[in-house]
């Protein structure tokens, strides 16, 4: 572990140890054990079956599609798939849990050990272990702010299928935790097993944080529940690590407990005491037989997996010559990668990557539009890059053309034609411009010739300006050098 990851306290360096449990909602139409709808945003209690409301005598029947998505996600995490797994009851009492227990998987989950690769900003890779993935029911939703004396309960979420994905405590700083959550989201979106929509609660993270002296034994951890954005995960970790270090340095000890992240104040606070919270009295659900399937079925699912982000990234680096960083930016969303591939087809891969990442995404993000709505299609951007590649316009002028394309919706060739923006490569014409610039700046020419060669950039700028940006920059450089030398 690199020194830079340590936090400096009053008594020296501390190391943070982070593990995460991410709840990812399965992208299914109906719930895990009932036929009620899962669409977000319905009227309260309108998407509830009598199973979800835990009426006496109701029995759960498992949704086969949810099982398939769990297996699919497991395969995407290069994980062990368990052909035999068991559903257990996790017992606890809360107003939005009508059964009094959550159907989950405990000792025998459907997916075992796997791994996830973090693409670090310096281009290196960090491997984070996946402990397990299991299927479980979501609880209902409580609203505490509607009335002074009552909590309101909406069971629409009750029984929705979740995949709980548990990591090993392999992360060492908030940056890695953020990258982990982003990468997991990318993978489930590629697989189509979860929509990854954090605003609607389709992905939520429980973050386990402890601190220790570098290389020492693991400290006592606190679990920060239900954090719903990458930024909040990182803020919560930073705050929680500092809090624990302060307590330990003052001679105190950490209580193992569940905490909440207050997004308004940026602090974590204690949620409930552990004695009650962690005594779940798991036992196998007598309403459900073990979940069993054949290896052949797993192999069939495996055969339908798409190219996943890690493989796509490797291909972009190897076949298209991209840097690891650019490649990881492009593969983060499947739509971006697809768009880039269309632009790069038959063109220079690196030039295409620069244009997609810097110019295209820059303007797209400012516009607030989606890729489908945006006026610049892959074909149009490709057309612009073709004009750069065949020297019709310089890379610099191409940025102006791009701005006009965004403004007018016209394609690059039309704009260049209409505005007469074609690059001037005719040396005679450029020489003429240079002569004018030198005549207008004789004092600077003299300074240059007496050794102030920093002024070269000034002459390049003046010449480009005088040519309306159309002069070929390489030709300008070459001719200027010759002429200034006298």
């Amino acid at each position, binding site marked *: 572990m690199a020194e830079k990851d340590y936090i400096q306290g009053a008594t020296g360096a501390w190391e943070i140890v982070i593990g995460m449990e991410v709840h990812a909602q399965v992208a*299914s139409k109906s719930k895990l054990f009932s036929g009620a709808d899962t669409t977000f945003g319905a009227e309260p209690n309108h998407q509830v*079956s*009598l199973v979800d409301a835990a009426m006496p005598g109701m029995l759960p029947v498992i949704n086969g599609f949810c099982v398939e998505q769990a297996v699919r996600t497991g395969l995407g995490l290069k994980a062990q798939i368990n052909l035999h797994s068991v559903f257990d009851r996790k017992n606890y009492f809360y107003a939005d849990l009508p059964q009094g227990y959550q159907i989950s998987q405990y000792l025998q989950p459907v997916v075992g050990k796997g791994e996830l690769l973090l693409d670090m900003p310096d281009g290196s890779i960090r491997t984070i272990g996946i402990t397990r993935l299991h299927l479980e029911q979501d609880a209902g939703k409580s609203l505490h702010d509607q*009335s002074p004396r009552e909590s*309101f309960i909406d069971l629409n979420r009750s029984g929705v299928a979740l995949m709980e994905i548990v990591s090993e405590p392999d992360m060492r700083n908030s940056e890695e935790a953020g990258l982990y959550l982003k990468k997991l989201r990318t993978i489930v979106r590629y697989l189509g097993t979860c929509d990854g929509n954090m605003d609607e609660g389709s992905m939520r993270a429980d973050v386990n944080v402890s601190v220790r002296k570098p290389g020492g034994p693991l400290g006592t951890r606190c679990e920060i529940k239900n954090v719903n954005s990458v930024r909040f995960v990182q803020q919560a970790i930073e705050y929680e690590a500092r809090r624990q270090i302060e307590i330990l340095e003052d001679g105190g000890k950490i209580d193992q407990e569940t905490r909440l992240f207050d997004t308004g104040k940026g602090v974590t606070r204690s949620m409930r005491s552990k004695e009650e919270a962690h005594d779940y009295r798991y036992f196998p659900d007598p309403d459900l037989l073990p979940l069993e399937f054949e290896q052949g079925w797993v192999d069939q699912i495996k055969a339908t997996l798409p190219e996943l982000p890690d493989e796509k990234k490797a291909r972009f680096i190897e076949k298209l010559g991209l840097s690891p960083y650019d490649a990881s930016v492009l593969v983060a969303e499947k739509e971006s990668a697809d768009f880039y591939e269309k632009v790069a087809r038959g063109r220079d891969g690196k030039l295409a990557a620069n244009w997609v990442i810097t110019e295209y995404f820059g303007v797209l993000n400012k516009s607030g539009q989606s890729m489908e709505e945006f006026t610049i299609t892959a074909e149009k951007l490709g057309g612009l890059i073709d004009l750069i590649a065949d020297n019709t316009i310089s890379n610099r002028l191409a940025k102006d053309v791009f701005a006009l394309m965004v403004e007018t919706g016209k394609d690059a060739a039309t704009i260049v034609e209409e505005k007469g923006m074609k690059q001037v490569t005719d040396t005679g014409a450029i020489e003429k411009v240079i002569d004018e610039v030198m005549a207008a700046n004789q004092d600077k020419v003299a300074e240059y010739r007496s050794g102030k060669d920093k002024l070269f950039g000034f002459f390049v700028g003046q010449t480009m300006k005088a040519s309306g940006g159309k002069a070929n920059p390489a030709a300008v450089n070459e001719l200027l050098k010759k002429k200034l030398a006298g």
Partner: protein
Amino acid sequence: MSLDKAAVAKIAKLARLKMEPDRQEAMASELNRILSFVEELQAVNTDNVQPMTSVAPMKLRQREDAVTDGGKPEAVLKNAPQRQGDFYTVPKVIE
């Protein structure tokens, strides 16, 4: 294994059962009789026996992913002791 009064009080609390202290002694001895019966069963060697999950040779049935239920808030809320609109309401839960 034997349960004392404190363990009984804790189990009752987790199950949200009200149990007066003078009932705990009797409950502990009832539960201990059940536990000692389980201990008797545990004396049997089951090292090579798979757990039996069903008396009939059947597998977990799976359903299609289709919306076939819901859309009946009146039925769902019919027995609610209290409601507000289509919400259940309960005494305020304080975290």
